[in-house]
């Protein structure tokens, strides 16, 4: 097998595995939450969730039927030997995984309104690039953007005098209306910036951070913690059927804003937060960061 085929093959195994297993941090957090959600429907649903994870692992099947639009967020070392072919390898990997996992066909061409049947379409898989000067390795984050968990997403530009409270209100309003459709407990990603598209993109990047991680800015961290606590007090419970908690956490990412704008973006991840994270070196050895110790 030549090196490019080897790379797409490795990436396809990474996608297949991530469709069937949640990352270590998400699994750990859900285990913790299950101890707390020990009453009523909440307890029944947590049991079903863990039974589902067990079965998905045993039968090697996508744990949720909605394997989403495939998105990659790549930190690409400028010295990575296969950089020129990387985009093609990622697309090829999606094709292979669609057949192998198998993934659901989720790419519908806009205007033609036809499902391509391959998970490949215009700008899909969605690939976001960041360059890492001098490095000969790449880091690939995979995110399976399901329908239900993408539904609460929004971005809007507030007037600065609406303040950070305006951000809190916008997020809480969305969570109590659309949140129940995003298979809570959710991870809430928030972006704060000067314009809508930057805030929206950062909100998705916030979801790529581990559950339980914190923004290094002390005020941002305090806001994450306060919002997590507040959302949990609302008690959406699993599936919106009420419980003692609502979210796995709140992650915030920011970019400097314009003096006259305060833009907020929100993305939600459902409990089945299929975020894969892998580092691939120049010799194609790898470190499967989101599922420690797993060999692909």
């Amino acid at each position, binding site marked *: 097998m030549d090196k490019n085929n080897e790379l797409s093959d490795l990436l396809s195994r990474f996608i297949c595995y991530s469709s069937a297993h949640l990352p270590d941090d998400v699994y750990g957090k859900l285990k913790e939450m299950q101890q707390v959600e020990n009453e009523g*429907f909440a307890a*029944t*649903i947590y049991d*079903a*969730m863990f*039974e*589902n994870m067990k*079965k*998905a692992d045993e*039968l090697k*099947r*996508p*744990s*949720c*039927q*909605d*394997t989403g639009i495939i998105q990659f967020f790549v930190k690409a070392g400028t010295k990575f030997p296969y950089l020129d072919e990387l985009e093609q390898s990622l697309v090829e990997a999606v094709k292979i995984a669609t057949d192998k996992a*198998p*993934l*659901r*066909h*989720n790419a519908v061409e806009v205007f033609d309104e036809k*499902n391509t*049947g391959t998970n490949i379409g215009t700008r899909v898989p969605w690939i976001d690039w960041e360059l890492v000067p001098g490095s000969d390795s790449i880091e690939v984050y995979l995110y399976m953007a399901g*329908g*239900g968990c993408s*539904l609460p997403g929004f971005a809007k530009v507030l007037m*600065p*005098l609406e*303040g*950070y*409270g305006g951000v*809190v*209100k916008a997020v*809480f*309003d969305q969570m*109590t*209306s659309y949140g*129940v*459709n995003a*298979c809570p407990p959710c991870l809430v990603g928030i972006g704060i910036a000067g314009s809508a598209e930057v805030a929206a993109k950062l909100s998705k990047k916030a979801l790529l951070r581990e559950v339980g991680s914190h923004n290094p800015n002390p*005020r941002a961290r*305090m*806001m994450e913690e*306060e*919002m997590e606590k*507040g959302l949990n*007090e*609302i*008690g*959406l419970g*699993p*599936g*919106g*059927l*009420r419980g003692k908690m609502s979210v796995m956490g709140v992650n915030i990412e920011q970019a400097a804003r314009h003096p006259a704008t305060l833009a907020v973006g929100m993305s939600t991840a*459902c*409990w*089945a937060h299929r975020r894969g994270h892998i580092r691939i070196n120049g010799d194609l050895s790898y470190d499967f960061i989101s599922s420690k110790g797993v060999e692909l």
Partner: protein
Amino acid sequence: MIYELKTPVSDEDIKKLRIGDVIYLTGDIVTGRDDVHHRAVLQNKEVPYDLKGKAIFHAGPIMRKNDDGSYKVVSVGPTTSMRMESCEAQFLEKTGVKIIIGKGGMGPKTTQGCIDNCAVHTIYPGGCAVVAAESVNKVIDVEWLDLGMPEALWHLDVNRFGPLIVSIDTEGGNLIDDNKKLFNERKEPIIERITEKLDFLE
């Protein structure tokens, strides 16, 4: 209360259900979401199955085609029911479906539709698609496959499929609506409290 029901279900079976009850369902059901509703209601096409007393599952499954041309369910779980709100009541009226299965709640039109057509909406735990697939005995057949794998009308034979939590009943009860009212009441003071702590503007 927990009920074991078999399709076709009768009006009596449905009338005794109240929000918060749980059903385990055995028999034949169909999957159908946006496009099936669009075709059946908005384009007024004939639904190729007799759905009287049956269930519609808001779901877009992953299916695997076997060598002999039959299909096997790989993964099938509920999708957001609210997307079908605009035409579910008409779908109930047209087909005689008695049980809607999905996730999240549905709105006032469907609630009225359930009262008028003696039907219920139920919630299956979202994301639990392998467990759900395991309660499918077999794929009986499929229609409208031209809509694509997730959108087609899959006809499934299921065994003790559940828990299906009743979220809209025939008396107008709506569990998720009630929950949302509660969430919204709790929300306001919490937002105020957090806002006070975030006075960062200089």
